[in-house]
């Protein structure tokens, strides 16, 4: 049953500092493009009741390169990504991911901070960030800290983010190597991932997967195996020990397990 809107409390922040003060004062959940918010509200699974609207904070928008790091403001939408020459040049696999998230209506509203903060293991941008060694910039009224995305999540939909913190940006250092992305969704457009993978073929290969464990998986052991020249078949077996797929309404553990290995092989052959 849909959550009653009249019982919700929304405060609107006009600046980052304004938002941080509100978050420091009391527990509030930031909302950006609201695409996940209303889905939870509609299914009656929405837990929080107090919110702070950050959509109007223009300081959180924009894509830039600073000190050779790609900096994307928290409110960067998928449409912003798709249209960005900077992302096209430095992180094209993120454009591949953005194009496959929702339809155009969702791409116009969904943000990278929302994708990261919502913490869904099926989030499509997150494996890209993981394979690219992205860093989540968290700010509170007291401090700013940078957490690598690979250390951001602690469990299913749980992260190191504190109640008074706001994601203000995602930073991606220069990616060394050929980028690769593949989403296996339930259909060709606006699908939730059954399994999603991103890889970088450089001096040290990187490979990350979504929807195969409670959080995004960066397959370090598999990467080490690949880096040391282990045959790909062997490396694929290593990968199976790094993931913990489950059965759900979208797919099966068996399918996810088999396809994860095949995607690794595909990554390896297509970036050769």
């Amino acid at each position, binding site marked *: 049953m849909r959550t009653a*809107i009249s019982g919700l409390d929304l405060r609107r922040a006009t600046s980052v500092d304004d938002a941080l003060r509100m978050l420091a004062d009391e527990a509030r959940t930031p909302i950006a493009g609201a695409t996940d918010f209303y889905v939870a509200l509609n299914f009656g699974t929405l837990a929080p009741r107090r919110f702070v609207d950050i959509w109007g904070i223009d300081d959180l928008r924009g894509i830039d390169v600073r000190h050779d790091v790609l900096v994307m403001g928290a409110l960067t939408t998928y449409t912003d990504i798709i249209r960005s020459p900077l992302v096209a040049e430095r992180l094209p696999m993120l454009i591949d991911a953005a194009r496959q998230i929702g339809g155009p209506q969702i791409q116009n509203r969904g943000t990278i901070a929302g994708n990261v903060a919502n913490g869904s293991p099926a989030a499509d941008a997150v494996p890209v960030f993981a394979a690219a060694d992205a860093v989540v910039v968290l700010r509170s009224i007291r401090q700013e800290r940078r957490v690598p995305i690979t250390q951001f999540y602690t469990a299913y939909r749980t992260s190191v983010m504190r109640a008074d913190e706001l994601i203000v940006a995602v930073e991606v250092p220069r990616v060394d190597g050929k980028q690769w992305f593949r989403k296996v969704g339930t*259909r060709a457009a606006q699908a939730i991932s059954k399994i999603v993978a991103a890889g970088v073929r450089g001096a040290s290969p990187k490979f990350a997967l979504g929807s195969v464990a409670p959080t995004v998986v960066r397959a370090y052991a598999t990467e080490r195996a690949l880096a040391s020249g282990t045959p790909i078949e062997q490396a694929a077996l290593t990968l199976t020990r790094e993931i913990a797929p489950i059965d759900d309404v979208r797919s099966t553990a068996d*399918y996810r397990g088999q396809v994860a290995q095949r995607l690794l092989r595909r990554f390896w052959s297509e970036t050769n």
Partner: protein
Amino acid sequence: MAAVGNSVPRKDGIGKATGHAVYADDIVMPGMLHGRTIRSTIPHGRIRSVNVVGDVPGLIVVDHHDIPGRNVVDLIEQDQPFLVERDVRHLAEPILLLAHEDREVVDAVRVEIEYEELEPLFDPERSEGILKSIDIVKGDVEAALADADFIVEGTYRTGHQEHVYIEPNVVVAMPEEDGIAVFGSVQCPFYVLKALKSLLGASAHIRVVQTETGGGFGGKEEYPSMIAGHATLLALKSGRPVKILYDRGEDMIATTKRHPSIVRHRTGVMRDGRIVAMDVDVLLDGGAYSTLSPVVLSRGCIHAAGAYRCDNTRIRGRAVATNTPPNGAFRGFGAPQTEFAVEVHIERIAEELAMDPVSLRELNALRPGDTTATGQVMGTDCSAHMVLEEAVRRTEFRAKREQYRGTNRSIGLALFFHGAGFTGSGERHLNSKARIDLTERGVRIAVGSTEIGQGTRTMHAQIVADALAIPYEDVEVAQPDTTLVADSGPTVASRTCMVVGKILEQCAMEMKDRLGGMSPADYHAKHGGFSVLRKYEPPDWIEWDDHTYRRDAYATYAWGCDVVEIEMDPDTLEVRPVKVTAVQEFGRPIHPALARGQIEGGTAQGLGYALLEHVVMRNGGMANAQLTNYIIPTTLDTPEFDIVMLENPYAGGPFGAKGLGELPIDGPAPAVVNAIRHFGVDLREIPAIPERLVACASR
């Protein structure tokens, strides 16, 4: 200019494109309350107690004690209650009704229900609750099987399918002087009327009005009677208008789906490919109540031997009860399930004989003079060979099949047919009526047949305009209101053009005689208006035995052959349809663009059935009841269509037309699976989701 045969503007086109068309949820009435249905949370058991928590001012509560008449949704059988009295037979079964003027208030009300839980039964193969059984016998199957060179056996399975009309169910009930008016998104206003009469008692004054309807596909054939009953009970108790609007989740969890099926074939074949014996067993999962299962089974069984000639055929069918929400009408009505089975089975016979699948079909497909499983003699309106040959020629099927061997591409084919109108003596029992009225502006059509997107208004107006030889623009179509229009029967079974259109044609011809050469306007000015009401007269040659299931099951059949080209990702086993060629013969198109739309839309829905649409059931309920997780095709999942409409006019239909609405959904699933089989994957089940293909491939 003649209207029939031309793609004239839809009567409802501009209203829909501008947003002015009024759907039921667009209706707001002064003092209107919002209704909510409290449903069972267990699949099987008995209710011990029901308790509405707290005291909510202004809350209207209705349970089965509030029913003035009979607590059954009057359809074929009378087993399904409007509201549970004691026994819960499926998850999400309606128990209690609430209404309040504030939707948030009614949504927040808590209702505690205590149950005594009983063991649920979900496996139709273990069910002993027979809702209907059918035996069709022709020749001597066992003897013919004994004499056959080969016997090919196989079991084929299909899953549930959800309609996903984009407009969820909605009904508004409004107390009127001495009675009740119901406005709703419904396919069959007279079905709703019948159910409400049973609910309220025969003397009640009831008016059912169909509002603009955002898709049906069978899903708004029988279930809206339930919702209308609920809204009516709340409206009568409160004395105010009540709207019941299902959100998408409730619509998916609570309302009907396509029947899942298990079909077993045992077929005797000679070395040269001649099919000499077909033994078919059809099992449909009906869910908790009978609803339309008997007639879905009937149509399924009659189509179960496919578009083939076989002198020794036995078809045994059962629809059984399980503890899941009732399955019901869905475009195709049993035929997509059984034609899937027979068309994949035919492909397997070709594989066993190492024979070209087209040649096997050419050898056995029905021709004029042949008889069907029920013993119906095919006339010249039988076009199985015509559609097969055209599809094979046009797609260069044989050459492509060779060319794609060993690649990630494949091509598959299915030959199919669909009987138009009610089965057997159904149309005779239905005794449909149609009426046209002479007005000062021209002619008004007054029938209960509904526009649900397929083009009823437009196509009926074309038929009447041409039969009267007046401009299409001078024909208007009345909104279906059971107190104002003739009961032309339900808008189902591909009968609205062929059967109702035919009565309208006859009405128009009679009116034309009476006009004596005058224009409607001139006649009206001089003599005033008049109406013509006529009944349907089925062709007099139709013979049908309801007990033995022998002879003329349908007045005519439409025919189709689909060729589907697919690509399969070798790693993920995702299958993508690339192109579908749909060659279909349905008499003659009244409106070519509408007909094309029926074929394209039905084919897309069939592709979804084949590849994407997977109802995941857990504890007797749909676990993926969201559009995020129940997947229908988007633009990017839908391939290029090559639509070919062949003509073979049927003398019994208006301007030669047969029924078309359901035919297109019979072909895509077997064509897709037959294409997948060419990759060497022994798949016999839909939906052909990659998870299943991985499992098949590793077997």
